[in-house]
Structures are given as C-alpha cells and as structure tokens.
C-alpha cells in the first residue's frame, strides 16, 4: 500500500464514517443536548451538515490527490512521448481564471466537480508544465485506455490483459511498477467470518469511479442538508399539525416536531450510501445496499402518521427486497464458483491485483474478441489475475458453466432493477414521493436509486453479452413507459419521479448497449440536474404552502424567480439542450453519448433497432413533459389565485443550495467525451469495452468505443431534433395554450386513463402477487390450525378413547378373569367340601386309591 493509497483511504473513510458518528449523536443527543428548548433546536441539523460537509471536503481532497497523482507523472510520460493526463486541462483553465470572483460560478464550474478553486490553489506546481495544447489533449482522450494501459505498468487493468501481455509488462517494467501510481486501491477493514479457504470481509476499493461518486454524493448531500434546514423548519415546534393525517374523528393529527430525527436519518443514509460506493466486495455492496434501503424506508415513512406514507415505505422496501432476492441468487452463484467476493486482492508484494473481475478473462483478438474464454465444453474458465487458468485440488481446470455466469449476471442486475426502479419493479418510486422533498432529491433521484446503475457499471466485467442485452431492453422499456406516464402526471413531484425512472432507464440502456462511460456519465449529470429540479420543486411546494398539484399553479416566475430560473436550467439540462461556445447543458453530453452508443449498437445489430428508436422518441417525450412542468408551474396566468397570492420565494438557506447546484447541473459534463468528468470516469473503465465484442451466441455484436465516438454528431442531431419537437409541442400546449386541454383529455380518454393509471402495474401486481401471497399465508395458517392441530387433537382423543377401552378391558376382562379364577377356586373349594368328612378311614381309603392310580400311571407311561 502506497502512501497515496493510505491517504485516499483515510480521507474517504473519514467522509464515510463521519455521517455515522453524526447519526449516533443526532439520534441520541440531537433532541435536547443542543438547546434548552429541544423541539426548536437546529443543533442536529448543523451537526449533520457539519459531518457531510467535512465529508465533502475530504472527498474533494481525495479527488485532488488522485488527480494530482494520475496526472502528475509528467516526467515518465514525457519520456514516453505521450501527452500529459487530463490534469493539464484543469491547469490550463485555472491559468486563465486567476483571480476568481464570486459571481463566476458558471465559468468556474467548467472544472470537474467542486474542485474549481482548490484545484487552482493546490496545483500551482503543475501549471508551468500543464500548458499543453488542448488539441493534443483531445487526441489523447479520444482513446484514453490505450495510453493508460501502456503508460502505467503497475496499473491494474480489469481482466484486460492476457497472460502474455501481463508477463511482458512484468518483465519489462517490474522495477518500475512498484513506484508507479496504481489507479485502484484496495484493502481489508476487518474479517466478518473465515471458513477454511473462504473469507468474508469488509474491504474498501478506491478507483476513479469511487472518487467521482464520493465527490458527487457528498456535494449533493451537503446542498440538500442545507436546503432541508429551511424546508423542514416547520418541524421546529412543539405542536406540529399534520394536514395530511387524520384521526378517526376527522381532525388533523397534532404531534411534536421531529426535526432532529429527520437529520439523523439523513446522516444514516449518507453513511450507508458512501459505504456502498466504498465497498471493496460485492457482499459488502449488498450489506450497504440493504442499509440504504432501510434508510429509504425510514425517510419515505417519515410522516409515520400518514397511512399513505407508511404504505409507500413498505412498498419501497419490499419491492427492493424482490430485487435483492435476485441479487442474492447472483451472490450464491459467485460465491459457489469463485469463492471470493472481492473486487481486488492484495498480492504478496502488497500490490493491488484483480479480484473477482479478473477471474473471468476475455479474448483480446480473433473471432472471440471480447468474449469470455471458455473450455472445449463451453464452460467459462476461471483465471488468476495473470490470466492463467486456475485449477482445483484434483488438477482440473476450474470452470463455471456459461449459463450460471449468465444467471449470476442477471441476478445481480435483478438487484439493480429493484434499487433503480426499473421495469418491472418501477412502481415503488413514484409512491416514494410521500417522503419530504429533500429526501426525494437526495435518496430517490440523485444517489440511492442511482446505486443500481453504479453497481451495473461496477460489475460490468462479469456481464455476458446476453445479460447486457437484457439490461438494454429493460432500460429501453423503462425509459419509455415512465416517460409516457410523466406526460399525464399532475403532481409536480410525481412528474419528476417518473422522469427519474425514465432517466435511470436511459443509463441502463446506455450500459446495456456497451456504452459504459455514457451510462455512468449520465448517472453523474442526472444526479446534479435532478437533485436541482427536486429542490426547486421543494422550493415551489414550500412557497405554495404544501400545494403539489401543478393545475393549481402557474405564473410563479414572478413570485419566485430564483427557483424558476434554476428549474429552467434543470429542464434545459434534462432535455439535452446545446448552447454556443461549447457551454452545452450537461444532459446534452450525456444523453448524446447514450444515444450515440445506441445508434452504434443498432447499426451493428439491425434487429435491435428498437434500442435506438426508444431513447430517441423518448428524448422528445422527455423534453415535452419537462417543459410542460415548467410552463404549468412558472409560466402563464395563475390558475388558483389563492395559491398564487400566498406564494413566496424561499428563504436564502433554500436558495443557496439551488444556486450551488445549478452551475453543476449546467456544466458538470463540460467538454463531453473530451471533458474532465468523462476522462476521469473512464480512467478505470473495464478494459474490454475498448474494442467491443464480436458476435456471440445469438449474434449480438457490441460496438467498440471508437464507433460510438463516431456517431456522436449524428446522434446529437437526432436527439436534438426529437427534443426540439417535444419543446415546440409543450410550448404550444402549455406555453401558448393553443389547444383546449380538457377537450383533448376527453377525446383521448382511454389513453389518458391508461397512462394516468400508470399502465395498471399496481393493479396487476396487486392481483398477481399481493392477493395470492395473502391467500397462501391464510392457507398456511389454516393448515396449522386445522390439519395439524386437528390431527393432533384427534390423536389425543384417540388416546383417551383407547384409555377408556383400556379401562373397560381392565375392569371387565382382566378383573373379570381374576374374579373368575377367584370364584372358580371358591366354587371348587365348595365342591371339595363334600369330601372333607373328617373320617380318618375315608381319608386313608382316598390315599390308597390315589397311590395305586399314581403307580399305575407311572408304570404304564414308562414301561420297563
């Protein structure tokens, strides 16, 4: 473990564990320790903000350290004649930005995540050598992985290097590799259980994806914590009136405020989410996977008095568990065949080597390019990090049947379906909007639901082509279905919820069509713009005194301009709007990348044209429903004068987070596939995405990364056209009110009803699973009561009856027999009495006769 590795570990562990400490403090002492009047104290909130804020600072430093190190090997790179890493881009920008002023958010945010100012300060040393021609950078990034692989001998490339290659590396660069900066760090925290050769432990695993996720999660979480201080302030009271919960006599529920509890749960969630990202093995991912699930449960059901809230919380948790059932199956297969869960192992020299992912190796050339290596029976070979096939105790090659590898992949993806609310488990997410809006922004749009996408990305090397195709189709169905429902939703949060599902579908589709980087880029950009939009909607809801129905809004632009503008930025970002000077909205880059991947995929596989058509059409729908939301809320005339009159802009503590997030939502993907974010993300991309995968079993061909880059222009045009149509329609219908909407709704009644009822998924599941489950449950209880207990009682009664018979037998037969013998003896005695005369002569006579008879018998029986 290098010093850098330890530093990164310590930083990220601090960021991870601080919220846990915060949770403990807040839940036990948050109520009462900070103030004389506990229900009015904001102490817990500031504690939570402090924890996650410090976590953000730690993540930021980690990011800088990482960037510094990976980009910092200038001398070595110069030797090789290779362009410097993307660090130079940052340095380049920073150069032109001194000194920086406060009003320049937009420009500052050109840089990766939050490092804008710090980067400038901390990287002085690199500026001198960082002034590379940006054109060269672009070339360097167009095919980042090749260079990466060649310049960093000690770097761990996931399953990418064949045995020969790695040997070559180790021979030529052995001396150097120890000193090189590896891009992945891993190590053990502690062991949970050890069973012979099997070890289950908690580990950490840090690579570029981890670091980007940490920075994103902590930044967004900090903003949302701040926002929540304002949003939840009505809980700062001894008598909170819940207008949505009623007692049986029809009154509103009165209860003490629970401000501190909300922040305790938020802190617990941050801990769980960061733990999920930091996890060094798939088992640990599962652990935190469940923990974010329970945090989600607690936060959705925060208003415990509302039946709808606790129903939604249960639904969320149980549907997630359905997905986790699949996850568990995947884990069982992996555990049984690979015997490890670790993403990475540490070899004897303390270097990070491939763990689970390197146990599947892929061909790097020929007809099987990119396919997993199999033996003659078609079973997948299990290999060491060096690409050598592992052998069991008997000397046979260790293998896993191909079908089971598919099962493992599908199983793990099943967990992702649940967590990321993909078809067919998508129905819990809209209901989850019962939670307070900051929760929707943090848990149910930006971070937790994206964990499914994150895991799909993380677990990518283990997915076979069949699994990827499934992922793509699941994503495709999801993004379309959810978008259509969003068209008719009228609750502002529900629109955003369906939009979230749809966007998650985009990410999955991107990953499924081999656009690994595209999917994950969209994960990051979406996190920013969707959390921004949710916070804006929260601001609207707060400003309108808990009115969520868009038909009662309208014209709020004048009343709450900051919110409206920030929301507009979010809408433009999600719609994928380009702008001059390359200042395109982030969604333009990420969605473009996904559509480009899909286009490249469908060109190679014309049979799967749908995978291109669906995201393309849905880009238009997305643009339509998002502008619809904006126009209905902020544009035109007020539809409900009462709501409008009382509406007001939110206090500063809620606006500031919006103003922080807006620039990120706009520009976090600056530069697109040559931008900092993208390059950072792809630093540790699974190697086999580089060259694509040639035809496998059912003829699917996965495109190589260059082919996707080639499609960007075309795809961008297509998507833009689609989004433009959506915008025009929305503007016509909701901006200019050209058509009577009620009329339209009436004419399209059936379709509208179908969409408004969410494609009837809830009814379907109710009939398919809920009712049958309760029926079966009732049956089991009935069996217990009736069959088992009745049998038992019957046996008991049988025993009693037998006992009774036994008594009768005893009394009549046994006793009767004894009595019979007794009385017979008595009778016999009676009879004998006649012989007992008392006369001696008679007795002698009897004796003589008896003796004679005895002798006669004896002699006749034994003659001679």
């Amino acid at each position: 473990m290098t010093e850098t590795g330890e530093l990164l570990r310590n930083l990220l562990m601090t960021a991870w564990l601080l919220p846990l400490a915060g949770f403990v403090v807040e839940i036990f002492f948050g109520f009462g320790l900070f103030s004389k009047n506990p229900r009015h104290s904001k102490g817990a909130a500031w504690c939570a903000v402090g924890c996650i804020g410090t976590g953000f600072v730690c993540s930021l430093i980690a990011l800088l350290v990482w960037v510094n190190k990976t980009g910092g090997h200038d001398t070595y790179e110069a030797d090789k004649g290779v362009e410097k890493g993307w660090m130079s881009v940052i340095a380049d920008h920073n150069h032109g930005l001194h000194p920086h002023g406060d009003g320049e958010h937009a420009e500052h945010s050109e840089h990766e995540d939050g490092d804008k100012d710090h980067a400038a300060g901390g990287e002085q040393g690199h500026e001198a050598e960082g002034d590379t021609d940006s054109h060269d950078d672009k070339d360097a990034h167009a095919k980042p992985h090749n260079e990466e692989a060649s310049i960093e001998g000690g770097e761990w490339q996931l399953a990418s290097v064949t045995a020969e290659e790695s040997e070559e590396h180790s021979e030529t660069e052995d001396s150097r590799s120890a000193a090189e900066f590896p891009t992945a760090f891993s190590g053990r925290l502690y062991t949970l259980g050890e069973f012979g050769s099997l070890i289950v432990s908690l580990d950490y695993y840090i690579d570029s994806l981890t670091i980007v996720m940490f920075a994103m999660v902590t930044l967004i979480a900090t903003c949302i914590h701040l926002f929540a201080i304002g949003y939840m302030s009505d809980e700062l009271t001894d008598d909170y009136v819940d207008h949505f919960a009623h007692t049986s006599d029809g009154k509103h529920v009165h209860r003490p405020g629970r401000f501190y509890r909300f922040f305790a749960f938020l802190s617990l969630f941050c801990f769980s989410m960061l733990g999920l990202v930091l996890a060094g093995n798939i088992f640990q991912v599962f652990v935190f996977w469940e923990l974010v699930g329970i945090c989600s449960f607690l936060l959705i059901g925060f208003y415990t008095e509302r039946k709808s809230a606790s129903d939604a919380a249960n639904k969320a948790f149980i549907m997630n568990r359905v997905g986790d059932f699949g996850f568990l199956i995947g884990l069982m297969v992996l555990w049984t065949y690979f015997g490890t869960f670790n993403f990475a192992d540490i070899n004897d020299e303390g270097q990070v080597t491939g763990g689970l992912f390197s146990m599947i190796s892929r061909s790097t050339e020929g007809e099987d390019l990119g396919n997993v290596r199999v033996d003659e029976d078609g079973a997948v070979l299990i290999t060491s990090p060096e690409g050598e096939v592992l052998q069991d105790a008997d000397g046979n090659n260790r293998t896993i049947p191909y079908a089971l590898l598919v099962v493992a992949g599908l199983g793990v993806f099943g967990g992702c379906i649940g967590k990321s609310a993909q078809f067919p488990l998508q129905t819990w997410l809209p209901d989850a909007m019962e939670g307070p809006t900051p929760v929707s922004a943090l848990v149910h749009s930006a971070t937790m639901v994206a964990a499914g996408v994150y895991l799909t990305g993380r677990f990518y090397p283990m997915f076979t082509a069949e699994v990827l195709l499934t992922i793509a189709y699941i994503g495709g169905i999801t993004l379309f279905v959810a978008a259509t429902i969003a068209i008719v939703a009228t609750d502002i949060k529900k629109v955003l919820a369906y939009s979230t599902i749809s966007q998650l579908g985009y990410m999955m589709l991107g990953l499924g069509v081999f656009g690994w980087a595209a999917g994950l880029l969209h994960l990051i950009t979406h996190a920013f713009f969707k959390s921004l939009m949710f916070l804006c909607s929260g601001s609207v809801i707060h400003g309108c005194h808990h009115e969520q129905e868009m038909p009662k809004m309208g014209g709020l632009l004048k009343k709450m301009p900051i919110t409206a503008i920030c929301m507009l930025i979010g809408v433009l970002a999600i719609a994928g709007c380009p702008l001059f000077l390359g200042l395109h909205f982030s969604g333009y880059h990420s969605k473009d990348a996904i559509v480009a991947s899909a286009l490249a995929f469908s060109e190679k596989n014309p049979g799967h044209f749908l995978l291109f058509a669906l995201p393309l059409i849905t880009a238009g729908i997305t643009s339509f429903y998002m502008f619809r939301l904006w126009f209905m809320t902020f544009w035109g005339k007020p539809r409900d004068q009462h709501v409008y009159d009382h509406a007001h802009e939110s206090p500063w503590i809620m606006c500031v987070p919006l103003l922080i997030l807006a620039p990120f939502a706009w520009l976090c993907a600056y530069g697109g596939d040559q931008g900092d974010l993208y390059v950072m993300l792809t630093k540790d991309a699974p190697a086999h995405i580089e060259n694509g995968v040639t035809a496998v079993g059912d003829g699917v061909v996965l495109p190589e990364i260059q082919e996707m880059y080639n499609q960007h222009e075309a795809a961008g045009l297509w998507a833009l056209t689609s989004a433009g149509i959506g915008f025009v329609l929305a503007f016509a219908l909701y901006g200019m009110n050209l058509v009577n909407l009620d009329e339209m709704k009436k004419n399209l009644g059936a379709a509208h009803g179908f969409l408004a009822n969410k494609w009837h998924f809830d009814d379907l599941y109710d009939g398919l699973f809920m009712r049958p489950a309760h029926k079966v449950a009732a049956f089991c209880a009935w069996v217990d009561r009736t069959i088992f207990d009745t049998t038992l009682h019957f046996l008991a009664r049988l025993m009693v009856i037998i006992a009774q018979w036994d008594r009768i037998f005893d009394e009549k037969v046994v006793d009767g027999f004894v009595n019979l013998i007794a009385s017979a003896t008595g009778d016999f005695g009676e009879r004998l009495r006649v012989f007992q005369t008392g006369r001696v002569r008679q007795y002698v006579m009897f004796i003589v006769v008896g003796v004679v008879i005895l002798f006669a018998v004896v002699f006749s029986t034994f003659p001679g």
Partner: protein
Amino acid sequence: MSSTDFLLVAIIFLPSVAAGAIALMDGKAVGTIRGMAFASTVVTFVLTLFLWGAWSGANADSPGDIVLLCEAGWIKSWNIYFRLGVDGISLPLVVLTGLVSMLAAGASWSINKQHKGYFILFLLLETGMMGVFLSLDFFLFFVFWEVMLLPMYFLIGIWGGPRKEYAAIKFFLYTLIGGVLMLIAMLMFYYGSGATTDSFNLIELANAASGSESTLSEFLSPETQVIAFVLLFIGFAIKLPAFPVHTWLPDAHVEAPTPISMILAGVLLKLGGYGIIRIAFPLCPYGAAVAAWWLVGIGVVSIIYGAFAALAQTDFKRLVAYSSVSHMGYVLIGLGVWSIGGDAYTAASRDYWLMGIEGAMFQMVAHGVSSAGMFFMVGVIYDRVHHRDLNKFGGLMGKMPVYSGLAAGLFFAGLGLPGLCGFIGEIFVVLSAWQFNSTLAIVAASGVILTAGYILWALQRVYLGSEYKGPHEEDITPINPREKSIAAVLLVFAIGLGVYPAVVFDMMKDSTANLTETMEQGYENAVPAVAEEEPVEQAQAMNN
C-alpha cells in the same frame, strides 16, 4: 475440585441453590425474592463470561477439542458419569443462556402472582438449560433435558394466558415424545458401543463413530446409524421446531408469560440445533450424510411455511412465534449442506459446509437475541393494554417513541437487516447452500421477501399510523427504565453481533473445523461397510 470444575458446576447449580434459598423465604417478600433470583442470574451470567475466559486459554492449547473436562462417577455400575465440559460449539450457547436468563429474570417483574413458586421454577429451568449445554454424558444430557421439561410445563400452565393448560400439555407431550425417541437412540448407542465398554460418554462415542480410536462395532453399522440419526433428529426437530412438528410452539408462546417466551425462543429452541450438532452429527456421521437432503428440505419448508403463516396472523405474539419457525429453518439448512458422496464433493465443498454449520450456529445465537427481544417488546405493550390484536394497535410511535424505536431495531434484527445480528446467520447459510442444491437454495433465499413482508406489515400496524385503535388507551405509558435497559441490552447485542460477527465465529471455528473433519472420517469409514453389503443402495445414497 479444580477451579474450572467449580466454574462449570457453579454455572449449572448456582440457580438451583438460589431456588432452594428462595424456597425457604417468606412468600410475601416479593422484592427480596425477585432481587435474589435476578442477582443469581446475573452472577451466573458473569460466571459464563469467566468460563469464556477459561475456555480461551484452554482452547489455545488444544484447538477445537472439548476442554475443561470435569468428571465424577455417578452410577458406576452402569458406567454413568457426571461429566461436563465445554468447547467452541457449546460456549456461545452457554453465554447466550446466561444472558437471556438474566434479561428474562429482569422481565419477570411483570409476573403478578405466586412469585415464590415462579422464581423457584424459573431458576430450576436455568439449571436444566445450562446442564444440557455443558453435559458430555448422554445419560446426564437426557436427565437435564427432562429436568427442563417440568418447570417449563408449570411455568406455562400456571402463569400463562387463557388457554394455558392446553398449551402446557401440548408442549409437554411434544417434547416428551422427542425425549422418548432420544432415549431409544441413547440405548442403541449404549449397547452398541460394545467395542469399548457400554458407555454414555459422548466424546468416546463420537470417537468410535469417526473411527479414530476404535473400530466400528456392529451396532454402529451404517444402517443403524441411519436409524439412530432419524430417531435423534425427530426428537431435536420437535424442539427446534421444524415443520411439521412445530405446532406446539405458537400455542406455547402465546400462552406463556413474557419472560418464559423469551427463554423459550431465546434458549430452548437452540437445544434442538445443539442436539443435532453435539449428538446426532458426531455419533452418526453416515446417518447425517444420508439424511442431509432431508435436513435441508425440511429447513427450506420451515422457512417458507413459517413466513407465510406469520403473514396471516393477527395475534402479535403468534406472529413472532411463527417467525421463529421460519428463522430456525436456516439452522437446519446450514447444518445439512453436506454434499459428501456427491460427484462434486471436494475439499472446497467441506469449506462451504463449514460455513453452513457456523452460519447455523450463528443464526441460533442471533435468533436468541432478536427473538427474545421481539417477545419482550410484545410483552411490554401487552402489559399496558392487555391485548395482542395486531389490528387494534397503531400510533404507538407517537405515544411511546423510545419503546417504538427500540422495538423497530429489534424487529429489523429479526428481519435480517445488515448491521444487525439476523443478517449474518441467514446470509451465510444461504450462501453455503447453492453448492448443495441450487433449487433449495433459491427457495430458501426467497424467504427474504416474505420476512420483510410480515415484519414491516406488523410494524406498520402496531407502531405507525395516526392513532391507537384498541382498548385501554389511557394505560399507554412510556417505557420505564427497567424495560428500557433490557431492550437496550438486547439491541446492543444485536448490533454488536451484526457488525462484528467474528467474535462468535472465532469462538467456534476450531471446534466446527474438528467436527467436519471427524465426520468426514466417520463417513469414509462407514462407506466401505455399506459397499460390501449393498452396492446398489450405496449408489443411491451417494446420489442423495
């Protein structure tokens, strides 16, 4: 008598001595009686911790063996000895028994009649439980087994609910049947151990079965092993309880007073699992291998059936009782995933089985904590409102926030949430099961959905909602310090075990490793004997 001998004897008989002292007290001095009883359980618990210390020293010298042996002649003409000892398999359960007994004694403040008799029986029960876990002589084991039975019968039958007599007799008869089957098996071993001398010594018998010290005598032939295993298994499965001999449990739990429910769920059910691993497994390894499929199958059915039955209950305590049936199913699976004799059995497979066994053992400890906690939480609210109808609760989160928070934590532990004790046992068992049989593993894993379903639904009906819907609303008072500390201790253990399970695994790993090795030996010794007689049957057995 050495100090460790004294420790072992004291752990078993200290509660009885205290019971004797209570018997001499004035029955009206309720406070003194309670205090005396509680103090003796505390001391016993502390003694078990000392035992842990003594054991770790001894275990370091001879890893995995049964150590701290204490032996005295009892009925010498029959070769019956008073023989105690402890190893990594019994130690966690001994400590658990000490803990749960202590907390249950603390929970016994709610007992409101005939205190003297109650505490005497309670302490005798603890003696019985400790005795079973510590005895290494089959006869002694059997005696303690039966010693537990009677106090339990009276504790349910006198201090129980409305149908207490029915529940008590049901419990008694079920367990007695199990005891009788065990007795038969015991005599089979006794007279079958002719190769050495007629013996009840569990260590000697196990050695004979594994073939490490003596040749297999005629009576311990593979066929006999199977018969003996089946007899023992039925006896222990009743105690566990496994489907379909579980129906005594819901009734016993529902009628028993809260502390007795805690003991019942927390300790008594573990005797079933412990019996299998301490007696049935080492004494008939071949029988265990043949029956492995049945163990796992019954375990899977118990999980699913118990979970469904729990989902349908309207009585809070009954729901928790069925959750016990469901959770103990994992124990059977973990113990049974021994694929020996199959084509794919390798040294690695034994590691998975080892994982299953340790997972099962952990599940027993974890269930002891979580289910005792759940029963206690039901008892706390029952003491206030005197009903358990799930549909007539609601809104307790607002009225009793601390209680509700603690209860939620303990129920989440039962749900198998990571970070809490229930998760580790379940997941390790399930992970070890795929190599044995993938279908059964998948069905077992599906239990996670049902478990989440019935626990969350129950939580929602009891703790959430806008208002309380049942009778005696005015009696709902916040949780008192005594109740709070009992629940908090359980929750702390639930979290501690969930976050750092290695503390239990480290205790048992040497012993379980020993067990798997000797059982493998025993199986391999038995196979040639089978092969000679009936090669066809052996092939079938292999397939199993």
